């Protein structure tokens, strides 16, 4: 049976630890002069992106390349996807190349899960609608583990547009599996009804932000203002922007990118040493190498491959 990574729910704490241990080894490989390992030599990885993406697509591409896989990148613009070919037809066409893995990014929830029905390849969800972005959650956990050792007992606040954030949903699940307590905070129009059923707390203001050890800031998109979720970006910033003034000593700040400076987070916070944003980007390649390795090579010990 082929393995897939569709949702954080596919993994238990041990599974997350195992992938992140591998990511640790791959991070060491990335520090070498020759950054490639031959693990996926002769195998093909397809990146199928139905949504614009810079960091996720480039880090998946680099991850597959560093594992020595052949990589095909397919993007919505300029391909048959734009000519109205259905997801099923596209996947079945790609399957003719016998890919070992298909990495899927789609604006629709459940797209990656659907792809598993039509291919023998391992499927990795690189973001499906506002549902999940499991590799982002893994790299966020990886980043925190490297800085703090463990997430056990950590208070993590996720701040901003939770309603439209797949990162928030994957992180809520992953952070809790790793022993952290999660609070979401943001404009009430952008906090989903019944979000507490996911085990987190919800707050309409940042009044208690001092409780947080980690402040995870979500991207605030201009469209949300146009759709009347908030009256203006100015009012959003006045209440929710993460600035030096709102933070206390010892808090660390994360953001999945790309950032809107001066909207959800101030420039000086981004560029300060309390920001883990650069670490998150760096972790992306090693973690995605580990995910592809876990799904396509699995049981073999990492040392043998990385040697």
């Amino acid at each position, binding site marked *: 049976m082929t393995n897939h990574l569709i949702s954080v729910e596919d993994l238990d704490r041990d599974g997350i630890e195992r992938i992140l241990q591998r990511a640790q080894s791959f991070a060491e490989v990335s520090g070498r002069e020759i950054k490639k390992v031959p693990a996926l030599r002769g195998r093909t990885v397809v990146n199928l992106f139905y949504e614009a993406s810079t960091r996720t697509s480039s880090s998946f591409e680099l991850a597959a390349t560093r594992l020595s896989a052949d990589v095909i990148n397919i993007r919505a613009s300029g391909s048959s996807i734009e000519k109205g070919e259905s997801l*099923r037809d596209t996947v079945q066409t790609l399957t003719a190349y016998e890919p070992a893995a298909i990495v899927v990014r789609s604006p629709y929830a459940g797209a990656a899960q659907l792809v598993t029905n039509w291919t023998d390849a391992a499927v990795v969800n690189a973001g499906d609608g506002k549902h999940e972005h499991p590799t982002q959650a893994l790299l966020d956990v990886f980043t925190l583990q490297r800085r703090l050792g463990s997430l056990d007992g950590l208070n993590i606040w996720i701040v901003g547009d939770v309603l439209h954030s797949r990162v928030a*949903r994957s992180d809520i699940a992953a952070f809790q599996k790793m022993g952290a307590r999660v609070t979401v905070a943001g404009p009430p129009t952008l906090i*989903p009804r019944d979000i507490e059923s996911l085990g987190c707390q919800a707050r309409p203001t940042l009044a208690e932000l001092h409780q947080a050890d980690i402040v995870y800031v979500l991207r605030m998109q201009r469209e949300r203002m146009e759709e009347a979720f908030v009256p203006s970006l100015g009012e959003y910033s006045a209440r929710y922007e993460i600035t030096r003034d709102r933070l206390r000593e010892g808090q660390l700040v994360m953001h999945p990118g790309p950032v809107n400076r001066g909207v959800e987070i101030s420039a000086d916070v981004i560029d300060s040493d309390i920001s883990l944003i650069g670490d998150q980007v760096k972790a992306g390649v090693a973690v995605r190498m580990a995910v592809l390795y876990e799904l396509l090579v699995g049981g073999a010990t990492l040392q043998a491959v990385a040697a």
Partner: protein
Amino acid sequence: MTHMKLFQKSYPEAELLIRQAHVLDPRTGIDAPHDILIREGQIAEIGAPGSLSAASGTATVEAAGKHVFPAFVDPHVHLRSPGQEYKENLDTGTASAAAGGFCQLIAMPNTSPVIDSVTVLRSLTTVAGQQARVPTGFLASITIALGGTDLSPMAALADAGALGFTDDGKPVTSAGMLRKALQYQRLAGGVIALHEEDPALSGVGVMHEGAVSARLGVAGIPSLSESTMVARDSAIAKYEDARVHFQHLSAIESVQALAYWREQGARVSGEATPHHLTLTEEAVRTLDTRFKMNPPLRNEADRQAVIDGLRSGVIECIATDHAPHARYEKEMPFEQAPMGTTGLETSFAAVYTELVKPGVLPLDLVIERMTAGGALYGLPIPKIEVGAQANVVLVDLDSTWRVGEHGYASRSENCCFDGRTFNGVVELTVAAGAVVYEGFKEKNA
């Protein structure tokens, strides 16, 4: 003889003896083993088990241990004709109904083109007279092209055979527009049936707004979207003393609003679907598009309220909202796939297995609610009594079947119960005095 607003192709009149079946008709009070002799399409004799014998040329069905009920009525189906015959047509849709034990159907007008003119309605009733296996009636639209702004020629449509009016699939968003339609009902007659949903509250929602939508990041349709419209339109119906039927009720607050306005004297009625009676938002966790329907599957409290409403009679009938879609349409990501599930072949079995067998609802009540939907539109109620037109279904309650295992009589396979094992196998359907389904023969063949 068929009702003048029901259309069916011609069949030979049934000549049939059903022996030793347990006959249950809550309206005539029969609830015991009997022989039933059908002659020239009418129930000729009902006798003690083993007492009746058939003349030569009369088929005999040995039915000891099985049940005969009045055949079912479905006041809410989408037969997709004209214009969407790749999903369903009058032949396949009514074959699906026959296999589910139905003897009357009421088809919705959200076809392509919409049934908003006498021309379209006449062409459809003509085809139904050639193809429909089960007597089928039609609703016409309230507004032209379901556009919500211009009234359909309701009086002319009623004269041409429309049983009533609905913009089903869409709400009549404007209260002023609905009020005019309800006033015009005094001239045209016919029940006005409403799909209740406030587009401003539904937004881009595609599933119930609640714990599951919060987890999936899929935009939700709040139950408020339905219940506020049920309350609003009940008030308008009361004010105009109009006859209004609420389709596919899904939310606890909707059932409460219906009960309240009924008490106030409003002439309002309601229906519930087998899927809202037996499933909740939990089914949507897998993002399987078979569970995408409108109104959406809601939470357990909502489901219980719909069951309670059906039990108390606040909700008068069960309706399937049979909504076939082609395979390729449903093989899409959840947010893109069309809304709807088929339901004709599974309606009784789903309700029997999920609600009657566990003791939630009594069998006689379910039979009553599954045969009540046509009377709301003025159609005759199927009854098991001597002299009545034969409208009966023979069901083996003890046998089980796996939904979809042998395919579907419907042209489409988007059934939310696909793969489930149910009790209750329909073996024979007699509709308007004609044998329209003989499942027991197909199985023995």
